[in-house]
């Protein structure tokens, strides 16, 4: 069921000529209860796919917004088991919406690749994005996830060029996540033409949907990205809204972003 949830979510939007909207949030920020409210509200606000951030003490690819969210979460005492229990709650309420865990390798390595994959499958997780596991290092986790019908989503960066692009794309699963800027999350604004070219190049090597994230903060940018990609990922803007004004306001923000992403090109 798991990987096919992802495929179905993209296909449903594509059938209408639309892009999927992927919403990222940090588990446990500011605490479990509040983050649960946001998580459970995301599908109704327009998120086609949800990325649940797993807090890590040393998130090297995150900008300040998500770094601070991770710290708030850890300070509130969030554990990996809590992240999985949030996932379970989500799965009970939303049987169709794909749920993807996003984070860093160490807390998973600590549990054990195989053991974590089993627990995640049980919690209803469909995919994982592990930022510091490039293809060269991801085999043990990819295998454990595959055994549990969970997709390990690969990241493609603007620096993934030449021979490396087809090599990285040869092992993709679920969808392809294109990192639109060389930088950390939530920082620079992506260049529309460069992103369109990159997505085009990626599509020469894979039939899977291509989603674009990093630096998409406003409905305008979301609309621009939706014009060239199968999915639009927004993270920092949602995390910032949650921090500033709470779950309800964050869901309103998600609605605006989702509407923009769903605009037919």
């Amino acid at each position, binding site marked *: 069921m798991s990987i096919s949830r992802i495929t179905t979510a993209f296909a449903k939007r594509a059938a209408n000529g639309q892009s999927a909207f992927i919403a990222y949030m940090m588990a446990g920020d500011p605490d479990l209860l509040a983050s649960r409210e946001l998580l459970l509200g995301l599908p109704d606000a327009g998120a086609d796919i949800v990325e649940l951030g797993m807090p*890590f*003490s*040393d*998130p*090297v*690819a*995150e*900008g*300040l917004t998500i*770094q601070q969210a991770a*710290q708030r979460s*850890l300070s509130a005492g969030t*554990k*990996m088991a809590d992240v999985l229990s949030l996932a379970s709650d989500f799965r009970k309420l939303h049987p169709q919406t794909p749920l993807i865990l996003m984070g*860093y*390798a*160490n*807390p*998973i*390595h*600590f*549990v054990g690749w195989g053991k974590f994959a089993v627990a995640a499958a049980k919690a209803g997780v469909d995919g994982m994005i592990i*930022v*510091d*596991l*490039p293809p*060269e*290092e991801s085999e043990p986790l990819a295998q454990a996830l595959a055994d549990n019908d969970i997709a390990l989503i*690969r*990241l*493609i*960066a*603007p*620096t*993934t*060029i030449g021979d*490396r692009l087809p090599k*990285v794309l040869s092992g993709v699963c679920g969808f392809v996540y294109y*990192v639109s800027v*060389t*930088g*950390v999350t939530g*920082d*620079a604004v992506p260049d529309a033409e460069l992103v369109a070219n990159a997505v085009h190049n990626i599509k020469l090597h894979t039939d899977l949907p291509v989603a674009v994230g990093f630096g998409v903060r406003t409905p305008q940018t979301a609309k621009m990205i939706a014009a060239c990609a199968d999915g639009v990922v927004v993270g920092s803007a949602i995390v910032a809204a949650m921090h500033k004004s709470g779950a309800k306001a964050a869901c309103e923000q998600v609605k605006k972003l989702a509407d923009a992403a769903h605009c037919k090109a």
Partner: protein
Amino acid sequence: MINNNTPDQQGRFGDFGGRYVPETLMPLVLELEQVWTAAKVDPVFIEQMDGYLRDYVGRPSAIYHAERLSDHFGGAKIWFKRDELNHTGAHKINNCLGQVLLAKRMGKTRIIAETGAGQHGVATATVAARFGLECVVFMGAKDIERQKPNVFRMKLLGAQIVPVTSGTGTLKDAMNEALRDWVTNVDNTFYVIGTAAGPHPYPEMVRDLQSVIGREAREQILQREGRLPDACVACIGGGSNAIGLFYPFLDDKQVRLIGVEAAGKGLQTGEHAASLSGGKPGILHGNRTYLLQDDDGQIADAHSISAGLDYPGIGPEHSYLHDIGRVEYLSATDKEALDSFQLCTRLEGIIPALEPAHALARVADLATDLGKDGLIVMNMCGRGDKDVFAVAGHLGVEI
């Protein structure tokens, strides 16, 4: 040469090492590996390195018989490998020089570095000034406070200092921030990592560049004593001075190699920086290695009186050498380091950095164990001028 310790094609020393970096950095890390592999056997690069090491750094560094300390401990004969006499006062410049020359070779115009005690930052800023490159140093806000002289030194050298307040504001956070900068400025920037850790090829590259310490020490002790030492001792934070001393001795099975980690307030207190004695294997800063972590895989704070050892990880080759048992890893507390700092200053007229003062604390026991016929080489990897203010504070002296 030593074959069993060259990392494999994936940059692994046994189960440790690797390249755990975001995809954005992966192509850079692969390019760096190619450039390094070519440079290290290129006679032009080797000649360049040798020339600067001789004329700019002041190598070879002396080996010195610490006679009064040897007498004081009443056992083995103790020799110091005096890397504290290098330009900028520590072993760090051996590595910075090589990496900056490599950056020039790759056409990079901007150098970034992380620093804890400030020694690596000063060495990087020094070499960047020498070669006219822009230099940005990331330093934890807490470390900036406790290492003021080095901060000013870096500024004089033209470097920009970026205070890091995220996390605990120490070396690991400075390294996170340097990695974030590198991800953002991939085109023009070279990241000069200061220790034998990080993604492949850094652990191998830093080891090869620091191995000059062990090569010289091996030749010098053979010349002075006519035999190899019974033991080589070095302090370990990330472990670059230690791997530099140990590497050329790895095949000399009769030579005991001893690394000394920072036990902070004591291993049992949990407030220490001893990754091997008190940590578990994990993934951080591009490599799999022993790390201090909590019971949920979050990286724990390290503690040491010495900012240069205050790091929750250790180079992956040390993790490997630990697991195969080739190197013994011990530890010394803040208090032992402070005592050794004062003892060495009084008896030898050498103010050691707090980092090698940790090594000296274990040399004391070892000298007794080995007895009068024993022979020890300890790496005096840095001088203590930078620590004078901090030591005064710990001793309750106002200056």
